[in-house]
């Protein structure tokens, strides 16, 4: 019986090709915009997540907002190191300084850090070395630079050629001892990197002397001790700082990568929902189109309905037949919409380098489900109208 109604629905859909297509158009556009928008947002969000977790190590960063006349010093940090869940600790003062080599001057982000910083932030060295303990003790003016500094400021062919070279940071001469490894990045990572370009890492001690930095530390980073969770480390650190700053929670701010990811994901989820709803509304409009056409179809086929009833179709048979028809139209529209968005997403994937927009099975199921729902709901009224016609009245129609 189901197969038969399917066949009958097909006969009717096929019998009116142009009209069926126009009816489908609303669903096609709705499904197309739904899947494309949601897929693009989710691909971008996946990419941001991937980039952030690849670029950022599992670290808790601490910003001291109000030191209450009790600034933290290097000694305080050393005291925290390797206690409980807290692993390594490194100061992380950041400021912007002009970097100069030859005639070229750019603005660099300078990070004043301790040797442990490499481990905490999982910095990969491409050539040379990171800052070491003797650099701290001897206050040597050494710098570890990002690869773009070697390329665009020092103008050397390969990053390793920069080792032993000199750059001027804020008027002081520094010897380049290491270059950060450059990783292949996708479009989103490039965007994130862009704001971080021209990075220079110098020993903390050296910063105190050269740039008149006070001894106190207002920004630092920690890692979790081996085998301990970052959350535990963060909690312990929070407790310690709370004690130090007389229980004032506003005095400092703890920031970890998961928090950042959570807020990114909240934004993209909201964006997804928003775009999804807009596309959903266009699907609804498509549904109204289906209802419209089905009503016309029921009126046109009143006599057919009468004949079917005369030879034994029950109300539910007629109901089923017309519902099947609207379901078929909406599902065919859905299939075409999916095909279309698959094509467009494939095109977009090849147009945007290092970025792939996928049609996720979840989105496909969502649109199939939503389309069937629309087909059934908006088919129900016309189908019911057909089903409850009196056989004699329907037969009399011309």
């Amino acid at each position: 019986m189901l197969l038969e109604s399917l066949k009958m629905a097909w006969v009717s859909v096929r019998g009116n090709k142009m009209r069926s297509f126009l009816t489908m158009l609303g669903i096609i556009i709705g499904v197309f915009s739904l899947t494309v928008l949601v897929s693009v947002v989710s691909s971008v969000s996946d990419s941001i997540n991937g980039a952030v977790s690849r670029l950022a190590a599992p670290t808790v960063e601490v910003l001291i907002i109000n030191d209450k006349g009790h600034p933290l010093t290097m000694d305080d940090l050393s005291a925290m190191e390797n206690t409980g869940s807290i692993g390594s600790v490194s100061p992380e003062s950041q400021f912007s300084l002009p970097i100069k080599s030859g005639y070229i001057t750019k603005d660099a982000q300078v990070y004043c850090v301790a040797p442990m910083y490499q481990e905490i932030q999982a910095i990969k060295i491409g050539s040379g070395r990171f800052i070491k303990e003797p650099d701290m003790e001897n206050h040597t003016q050494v710098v570890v630079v990002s690869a773009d500094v070697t390329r665009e400021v020092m103008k050397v062919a390969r990053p390793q050629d920069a080792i032993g070279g000199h750059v001027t940071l804020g008027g002081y001469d520094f010897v380049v001892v290491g270059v950060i490894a450059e990783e292949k990045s996708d479009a989103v990572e490039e965007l994130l990197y862009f704001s971080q370009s021209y990075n220079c890492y110098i020993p903390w001690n050296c910063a105190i002397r050269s740039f008149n930095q006070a001894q106190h530390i207002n920004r630092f980073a920690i890692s979790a001790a081996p085998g301990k969770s970052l959350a535990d480390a963060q909690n312990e650190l929070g407790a310690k700082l709370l004690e130090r700053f007389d229980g004032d929670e506003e005095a400092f701010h703890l920031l970890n990568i998961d928090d950042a990811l959570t807020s990114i994901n909240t934004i993209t989820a909201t964006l997804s929902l928003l775009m999804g709803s807009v596309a959903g509304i266009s699907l609804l409009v498509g549904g109204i189109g289906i209802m419209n056409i089905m009503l016309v179809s029921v009126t046109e086929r009143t006599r057919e309905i009468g004949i079917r009833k005369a030879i034994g179709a029950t109300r539910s048979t007629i109901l089923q037949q017309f519902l099947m028809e609207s379901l078929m139209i909406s599902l065919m529209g859905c299939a075409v919409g999916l095909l279309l968005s698959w094509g467009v997403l494939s095109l977009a994937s090849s147009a945007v380098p290092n970025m792939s927009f996928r049609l996720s099975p979840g989105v496909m199921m969502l649109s199939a489900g939503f389309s069937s729902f629309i087909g059934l709901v908006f088919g129900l009224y016309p189908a019911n109208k057909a089903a409850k016609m009196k056989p004699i009245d329907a037969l009399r129609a011309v």
Partner: protein
Amino acid sequence: MIILKDVSKIYRMGDNEFYALDHANMHVQEHEFVSIIGPSGSGKSTLMNIIGCLDEATEGEYFLDGQEIRSYSQTQLARIRNKKIGFIFQSFNLIGRMSAWENVELPLIYQRVPVRERRERVAQSLERVGLYERREHQPNELSGGQQQRVAIARAIAVEPTLFLADEPTGNLDSHTGEEIMGIFRELHEAGNTIVLITHDSGIASQAQRRINIMDGHVTEVD
């Protein structure tokens, strides 16, 4: 098999009551071939629609196979139309976008007859009316007489207890009409019950028994 007791069909138009059927009494027995004859507008179709369970009487009782028709639900009435009654209409009433085969098959689909048996019965019925070769044709590719034969095949396939024909030759020329009447006579000889409605006494005389209808009044002649 069919018993009508004081059946009336009243159409109300404003304050006027119009009796399309006025206290009609009649009966049809099994294996009978009965004709109902009356001029246009006398209430023949109204009577047929009530006998065929397409319409309800306003007053009176109608027993089909011993059961009062009012006791049935809409769905049960649909099943009765489906299994017990083979309709043949003046205007053929085939479904336009479906082939002859599909038209004949439709009531069997509603009966949920299994595919194999269905195929056999459809083929047999179409052969019976001599249209097996034209089974793939749609109604608009067939002549009036051929369309009416498809409609008869559709009724035959159901193996109904009652063939109900409302002016089956009314839209056909006399020669084709005679062919159609031939099929009805054969069906009767094979033991089927037939009620045939007509305004043509020549056609009515081919039945075993005549029932006259005039202005909604039914008179049985034995």
